[in-house]
């Protein structure tokens, strides 16, 4: 959900600093950024010129499987997969991967809905709450579970999720919590309540996620209400509380990493995986799942109904559920996967980090946001009025 490392910020900044003339910054930064952003995708598109030609040295594993197509179109968050996953998949199956990235969920959702069957992509990564709507709209096709044998690696709590019984249409990819983080260098206190996001001491140093469901959920937790409520009276109470908070807010943004790394915020409403990505720039960043409760979410892997390469798509999902591949993904991006078999390969520092991998005792305080259909309007109208 966050803008996951839009670019290699530190590199960009370092080069921008080299130019003593500030005006040169944009030009230099622009040059670097195109070079920098090429690195994550270097393992994708153009990296395997010969892959679509002769079969690779490693043959496709079980020979009983149908022959996969030569190409695969993947559409995922930027910086949301292991460094070498794409290359390893290409080498294993001899399938050329065309790997496309989106910066925010709404862009992706609008695109795959544009023709009602996925806009030519094979695999995509929607949030779990979107799955019921996408299934009923016919945007997804059922998974070929006989090709996804690694589904047995999933932890028991993920094998039959409420949003998609038996994972018939989607496979869980990564999950997170939404709490808030603060810079331990500037805020010494131990924080544990959502109330801190209303503390006037942090006026102008506070950022909230630019995601109305997440923001309303914070107000709901403070008021002891259900974050999935559609009751107008309750929503009015929530928005009144948020109106009170707004003068303190520096910005509503999904770039929670950017506002903490850039120093604009000392305290920020944030996604847990993004906090992991902040360590480099803000070494003393702290994260809490507040005591009043918090949102838990997960992203899934799906095959779109218009997928031109459905077999390759199912093989891709199977590949990403492999214990070692899943662990490599987690080790690179800092989001926990639902893969129980992967745990032994995950960096112990991540497993021991309660930010990324919270104590399961907390899980009952976590609420998943549900798709609300046209009742969503009650939120968007209040959200727009709040921000206007």
């Amino acid at each position, binding site marked *: 959900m966050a803008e996951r490392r*839009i*670019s290699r*910020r530190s590199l*960009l*900044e370092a080069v*921008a*600093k080299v130019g003593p003339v*500030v005006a040169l*910054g*944009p*030009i230099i*930064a*622009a040059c670097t*950024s*195109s070079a920098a952003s090429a690195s994550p995708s270097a393992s994708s598109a153009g990296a395997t010129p010969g892959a679509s030609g002769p079969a690779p040295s490693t043959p496709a594993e079980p020979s009983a499987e149908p022959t996969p197509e030569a190409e695969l179109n993947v559409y995922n968050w930027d910086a949301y997969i292991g460094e070498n996953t794409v290359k390893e998949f290409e080498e294993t199956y001899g399938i050329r991967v065309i790997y496309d990235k989106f910066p925010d*969920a*709404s*862009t992706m*959702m*609008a695109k795959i809905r544009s023709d009602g069957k996925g806009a030519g992509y094979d695999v995509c990564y929607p949030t779990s709450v979107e799955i019921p*709507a996408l299934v*009923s*709209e016919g945007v997804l096709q059922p998974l070929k579970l006989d090709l996804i044998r690694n589904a047995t690696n999933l932890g028991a709590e993920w094998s039959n999720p409420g949003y998609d019984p038996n994972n018939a249409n989607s496979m869980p990819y990564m999950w997170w919590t939404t709490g808030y983080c603060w810079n331990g260098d500037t805020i010494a206190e131990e924080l544990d309540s959502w109330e801190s996001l209303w503390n006037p001491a942090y006026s*102008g140093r506070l950022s*909230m996620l630019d*995601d*109305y469901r997440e923001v309303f959920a914070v107000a709901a937790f403070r008021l002891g209400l259900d974050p999935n409520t559609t009751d107008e009276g309750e929503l009015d109470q929530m928005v009144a509380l948020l109106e009170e908070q*707004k*003068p303190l*807010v*520096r*910005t*509503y943004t999904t770039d929670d990493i*950017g506002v903490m790394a*850039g*120093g*604009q915020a000392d305290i920020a409403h944030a996604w847990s995986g993004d906090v992991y990505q902040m360590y480099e720039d803000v070494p003393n960043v702290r994260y809490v799942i507040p005591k009043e409760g918090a949102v838990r979410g997960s992203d899934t892997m799906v095959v779109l109904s218009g997928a031109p390469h459905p077999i390759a798509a199912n093989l891709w999902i199977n590949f990403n559920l492999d214990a070692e591949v899943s662990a490599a993904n987690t080790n690179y991006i800092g989001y926990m996967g639902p893969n129980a078999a992967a745990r032994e390969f995950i960096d112990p520092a991540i497993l021991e980090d309660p930010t990324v991998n919270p104590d399961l005792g907390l899980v009952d305080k976590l609420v998943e946001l549900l798709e609300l*259909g*046209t009742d*969503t*309007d009650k*939120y*968007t*109208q209040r*959200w*727009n*009025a709040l*921000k*206007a």
Partner: protein
Amino acid sequence: LTTAERTAAAGATPAAGRPLRARLAVHVPGALLVAPGVLWLAVFFLAPLAIIFVVSLASRNDSNQLVFDSLSLNNYAEATRPEYVPAFLNSVRYAAITTFLCIALGYPIAYWISRHGGRRKVLLLILVMLPFWTSYLIRTYAWMIILRDNGVLNGFLQTIGLIDRPLILLNTDFSVILGMTYGFLPFAILPLFVSIDRLDHNLVHAARDLYASGRAAFLHVTLPLTLPGIVAASMLTFIPAIGDYVTPDLLGGAQTTTAAKMVQVLFSTGRDWPYGSALGFLLMLMTLVGTFVALRTLRRETFG
């Protein structure tokens, strides 16, 4: 040889007395010649506008699909709620200030290039357009890196000891207007350059010969004669500025929401196309009215 001459030489069409182009010009009615332009306008401007208008009258069923059976103006009533007025005012305010700054900065630049550019005019104009070689998004991100609290500018000012706490630059009116002015300045300079470059400088000399001061000659000769360029530059700046959502989104903050940003929320996460269309149509109406007023003023000023 033209085709006509060739065919005439071959003796196939003895009637070909005049070149083909001349005969075409006589026989092809004017309407046909403007057809490509009209078609372009119809397909890429009027049709989308009509679609947006029809969608803005529609409603949605429970599974978020558009329903056209009961068209109404409800979405417009909703879109003009007083809570939204500040966002519309913000849009107009940012666009107006940006336009003013673009003209104020662009006019001297265009004037200088035209009068003193000499042999390097083309090079200078290419330099004006140089930023377009990089994506606007990337350039806006670069501004974020410059303006943020521990960014390039604050770092520099702190190093030389001018300030000891970072200035709050990002997420303010200042950063939004800076970003927009930076982004739209080339759009203002080019039409200003054209109208200043076309100005017959003998007129200015004549004014000076008649004892006008430099200031008076500028105010009474140069400025009125370049007014069409100023209006064109204003429109090329104001129109995209009022609909710009990238700059306020990236450089703005919690207190700087614009109407375009609201439209974006409605279309993407909100998935309320009718309501978003109504808001978008209102925004466009504001732009059209502004343009119309500007053109009327121009016509009065230049043609009496």
